[in-house]
């Protein structure tokens, strides 16, 4: 019952998105949509996925959307085409075809559905004995479907590089002394309150008014980082793993950049270091595979990494989760810094 009501909230949010002209509200509604989806997944028993969606969809995606709105300097759509007849016809026909397709599907939650009768029982029954990892999602992700995850990690790496290629060069934030640029000095004159279009609301001075935000942020950043490490290390036993940990780790830096300005955050995590770690994660992942080959196994076969196959599996899973975490964290931070580091004034 609760999943039907959550789905209804999602339908209402999505319909609202069609009508909204204010793009700021579009971004916010998209965040609400993602968060509702995350709650739905907790109800459906997919806790790892819910965890990821809550941190990615409601966190990083919203920040990126706001940053790109600041960069394109648009707040409103020119016109909304709420009713667009050809599009409506296409959508209705497609929807009808899809619903026709579901008529042959087994009922929702049916334990005898084909999806539950082939490989899934094997994972549920044997994965603990074979890998020593109680979280089946982690063991399938990192070990049984290791090739797939290697591909996904490479896609994230490629996307990070793609954003760097598109926006990273030529429009970089003017490099200055980070402390001066952040306007943090108490003796400095505050920036004019009317200065428009600051992509990062941290660099316009006014230390006195920011005190509450900065103290609150400083109190929050260490627990966020600690939680990221916990998520990374605890991924075998409970919900969590490299993907979530990377995103949470990056969000601590994003919070720091929002409060203290991008130059300050870049001083903590310089672009050159991030570019290195972006590649390092994929390298660790692929390197574990090579190590397996050198020790006489197949590529990404972790059983040969230690004397005991189960220990080898555990070691391999921990190592590749570390690689995933490093790449995801660096990719998210790189993307955010590239977006937020742009100077909106320079666009015109």
């Amino acid at each position, binding site marked *: 019952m609760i999943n039907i009501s959550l789905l209804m909230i999602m339908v209402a949010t999505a319909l609202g998105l069609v009508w909204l002209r204010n793009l700021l509200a*579009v971004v916010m509604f998209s965040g609400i*949509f993602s968060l509702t989806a995350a709650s739905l997944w907790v109800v459906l028993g997919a806790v790892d996925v819910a965890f*990821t969606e809550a941190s990615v*969809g409601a966190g990083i995606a919203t920040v990126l959307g706001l940053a*790109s709105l600041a960069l394109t300097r648009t707040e409103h759509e020119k016109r909304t085409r709420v009713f667009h007849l050809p599009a409506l016809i296409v959508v209705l026909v497609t929807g009808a075809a899809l619903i026709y397709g579901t008529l042959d599907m087994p*009922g929702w939650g049916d334990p005898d559905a084909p999806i539950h009768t082939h490989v899934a029982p094997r994972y549920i029954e044997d994965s603990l004995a074979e890998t020593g990892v109680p979280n089946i*999602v982690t063991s399938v992700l990192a070990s049984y479907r290791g090739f797939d995850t290697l591909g*996904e990690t490479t896609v994230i790496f490629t996307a990070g590089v793609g954003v760097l290629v598109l926006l990273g060069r030529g429009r970089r934030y003017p490099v200055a002394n980070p402390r001066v640029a952040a306007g943090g000095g108490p003796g400095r004159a505050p920036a004019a309150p009317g200065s428009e279009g600051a992509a990062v609301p941290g660099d316009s001075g006014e230390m006195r008014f920011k005190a509450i935000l900065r103290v609150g942020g400083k109190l929050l950043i260490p627990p966020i980082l600690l939680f990221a490490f916990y998520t990374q290390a605890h991924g075998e036993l409970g919900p969590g793993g490299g993907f979530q940990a990377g995103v949470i780790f990056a969000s601590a830096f994003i919070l720091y950049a929002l409060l203290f300005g991008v130059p300050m955050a870049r001083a903590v995590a310089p672009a050159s270091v991030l570019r290195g770690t972006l590649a390092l994660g994929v390298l660790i992942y692929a390197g574990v595979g090579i190590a397996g080959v050198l020790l006489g196994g197949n590529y990404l076969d972790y059983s040969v990494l230690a004397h005991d196959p189960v220990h080898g599996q555990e070691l391999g899973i921990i190592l590749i989760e570390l690689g995933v975490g490093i790449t995801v964290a660096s990719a998210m931070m790189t993307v955010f810094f590239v977006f937020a580091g742009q100077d909106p004034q320079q666009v015109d």
Partner: protein
Amino acid sequence: MDFPGLFNYWIVIALMMIGFYIVISQGNLVKKIFGLNIFQVSVFVFYISMGKVEGGTAPILAPGFATYTNPIPSVLILTAIVVGVATMAVGLALVVRIRDAFGSIEDDEIAKLEGDVT
């Protein structure tokens, strides 16, 4: 047919179609990308719904539980979410570059400008 039956899937399809409608009918590129996000999340919901087992708990092995939710859709979607946000970042970066080049992020204005050039 008992109540949940296929009803869940139908709502999810309605969600997908709303996202699809935003992508093809709206002119603003940022709104198109967020419509695509709606579409994408709906597909994820569809996968996760298929993995649900009646009475199953989260797929983390613990003594005292026998029925678990199917872990495979979780694995597929977990990676897809992070890949989705990474590709969305590339899309938004492209929008920013388009704004630089054409001074607009409305598709009909861009098409008109392109027509002037050629």
